[in-house]
């Protein structure tokens, strides 16, 4: 791989660039033959090395086609493209004309294609998108939606390499791209990020992780999620640091490919959701790791779902023979609304572990260091805020709380969202005096952030955000389920290192066979319509579910009741 000699974008050089285009032009002009991306295709196909020249010329083919059909700066482009080189080109091609690319979650084997395309149609209509860029195999199905916007696929592009232009009529305040949370609820909230915000994040986060031109990032993360899009695509392209990229669908089937890629390309940085540490520790055999060395790594950065010290221990023990050292394990707290990272831990020293009293945590909402013999909670620090971010813990009245008091985490920075796209009402709800209210509970101690729980109704499974309301609505439509009498919640799964999802449904019948069949339907429909699967569907009698005084289904109380009943069954 060509060694990069990129001049990095850091806080001290940040002012030199207004937009992502201005910043990246220098890679095309100064280092066209350096490696931008190595794409690792599934199976034994050869790896595809893409230089900066090839990357920007590939993107320019999309830019020219989009311009040719009248797409203007600030128009929204929805990308329904599989995890492939084409996705990289399509995204950057839209950026190049100043349009706003937004990546739609990938179609996977288990999803029902008809429902998937219907989601795309709904997104097009409520977002006001001006164009859809699609993988060739989806173009026909998307055209059949008659959504009224042009569908551009690779076949429609001009056959020759394009000529990149880095001077679209946009400024730092213009929206660069949208990030979506998963699920139908998430699609209502396109997180709009300006060019200035993204550059601020890249500069600040690069300083926090001590990025150098010698780094090499290895990623299998999906690009429709902030961790994959920013850490696993935008940051390396903006910085001119090589990226080795593989598809999440491929990695799930064959997790060793990531480790082989690190070994082959001397990877130094890799971002993973917590479950991946367990997955890699438990499900890769020694005989699949012959000759692999992970000693080149600087940091495996745990991010995007609750982090567990136990997952780090398992991973470090499993891969110690391959060169993994505890000091390579790092932690991060991030969210799409802040472009990506808010805090970073474990780069200059081991991530801090705080042993606190369980009792004080649950009864006093205070993170008091545990006394001898007391039941303890082992809290893994997310690290300190990165240079451009401030973190506060606030109470219900949004007043700041002292150190070690549990409250809602609030974030303020210059890399925050401009707003939820076309939803000023949601933007107003999420921001308070310039602070973004994250919906996570946590505390600060010695300048570092710890996350203890969640205020918002959100389940995080393997790094994917799932709204229980979406799952409950799907279950409610199944015949035999009492409409509106369903509840979904997450249950900690220590073996998998993530949450599992449980659905409780009140049944209209007490016949066991009929209930079994209803539960089967609920599972199947959730699998086909969402990115997740249910670990348990629990059919119960009418009036089983607790409601709050305002008539809402009480998730917490129902979760406790479910856990009690399942525990009693198992004796």
């Amino acid at each position, binding site marked *: 791989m060509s060694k990069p000699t990129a001049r990095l974008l850091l806080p001290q050089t940040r002012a030199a660039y207004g937009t992502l285009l201005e910043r990246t032009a220098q890679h095309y002009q100064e280092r066209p033959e350096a490696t931008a991306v190595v794409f690792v295709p*599934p*199976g034994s196909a050869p790896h595809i090395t893409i230089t900066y020249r090839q990357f920007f010329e590939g993107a320019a083919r999309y830019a020219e086609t989009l311009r040719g059909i009248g797409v203007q700066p600030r128009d929204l482009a929805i990308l329904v493209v599989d995890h492939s080189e084409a996705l990289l080109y399509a995204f950057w091609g839209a950026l190049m004309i100043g349009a706003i690319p937004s990546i739609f979650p990938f179609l*996977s*084997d*288990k999803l029902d294609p008809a429902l998937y395309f219907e989601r795309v149609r709904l997104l097009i209509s409520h977002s006001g998108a001006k164009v859809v860029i699609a993988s060739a195999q989806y173009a026909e199905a998307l055209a059949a939606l008659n959504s009224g916007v042009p569908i551009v696929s690779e076949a429609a592009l001009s056959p020759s390499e394009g000529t990149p232009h880095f001077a679209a009529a946009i400024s730092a305040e213009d929206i660069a791209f949208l990030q979506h949370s998963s699920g139908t609820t998430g699609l209502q909230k396109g997180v709009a990020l300006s060019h200035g915000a993204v550059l601020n994040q890249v500069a600040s986060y690069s300083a926090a992780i001590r990025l150098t031109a010698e780094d090499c990032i290895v990623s299998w993360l999906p690009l429709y999620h902030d961790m994959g899009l920013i850490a696993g695509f935008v940051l390396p392209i903006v910085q001119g640091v090589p990226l080795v990229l593989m598809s999440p*669908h491929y990695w*799930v*089937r*064959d*997790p060793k490919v990531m480790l082989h890629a690190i070994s082959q390309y001397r990877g130094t940085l890799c971002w993973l959701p917590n479950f991946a540490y367990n*997955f890699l520790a438990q*499900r890769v*055999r020694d005989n699949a790791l012959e000759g692999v060395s992970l000693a080149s790594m600087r940091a495996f950065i745990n991010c995007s779902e609750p982090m567990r010290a136990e997952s780090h221990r398992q991973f470090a023990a499993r891969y110690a023979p391959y060169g993994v050292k505890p000091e390579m394990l790092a932690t991060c707290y991030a969210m799409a609304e802040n472009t990506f990272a808010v805090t970073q831990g474990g780069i200059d020293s081991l991530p801090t572990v705080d042993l606190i009293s369980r009792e004080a945590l649950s009864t006093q909402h205070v993170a008091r260091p545990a006394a001898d013999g007391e039941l303890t909670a082992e809290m893994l620090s997310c690290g300190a805020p990165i240079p451009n971010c401030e973190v506060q813990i606030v109470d219900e009245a949004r007043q700041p709380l002292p150190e070690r008091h549990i409250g809602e985490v609030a974030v303020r920075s210059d890399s925050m969202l401009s707003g939820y796209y076309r939803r000023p009402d949601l933007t107003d709800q999420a921001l308070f005096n310039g602070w973004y209210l994250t919906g996570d509970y946590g505390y600060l101690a010695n300048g570092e952030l710890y996350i203890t729980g969640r205020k918002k109704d959100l389940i995080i499974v*393997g790094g994917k955000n799932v709204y229980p309301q979406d799952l409950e609505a799907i279950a409610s439509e199944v015949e035999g389920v009492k409409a509106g009498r369903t509840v979904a919640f997450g249950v900690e799964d220590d073996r998998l290192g993530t949450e599992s999802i449980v659905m409780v449904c009140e049944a209209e019948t007490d016949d066991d066979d009929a209930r*079994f069949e209803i539960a*089967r339907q609920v*599972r*199947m*429909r*959730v*699998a*086909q319509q969402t990115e*997740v*699967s*249910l*670990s*348990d569907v629990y059919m119960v009698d009418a009036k089983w579910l607790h409601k709050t005084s305002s008539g809402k289904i009480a998730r917490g109380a129902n979760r406790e009741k479910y856990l009690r009943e399942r525990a009693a069954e198992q004796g």
Partner: protein
Amino acid sequence: MSAEIRDALRAFILNNIIRRPSYKLGDDDSLIKGGLMDSFSLVEVQLFIEETYGFRPDDVDMTVENMDTVRMIADYVQANR
């Protein structure tokens, strides 16, 4: 023979992946498309086959299309062991 393989696979999937041994899992129930397990679990099935039947299924064969029911997995094992 293949009934034995199906029963062994069923027991493994119920005890280790679905983790509900009393669940009535039929030979033709769709595992992944039916939402009983996610595609991550195919790696576990692959390791189980390797340990139990002494051969490692090719990674490219471990897809939802090929491995979505107990019967499909058992037939694959029978044909390749």
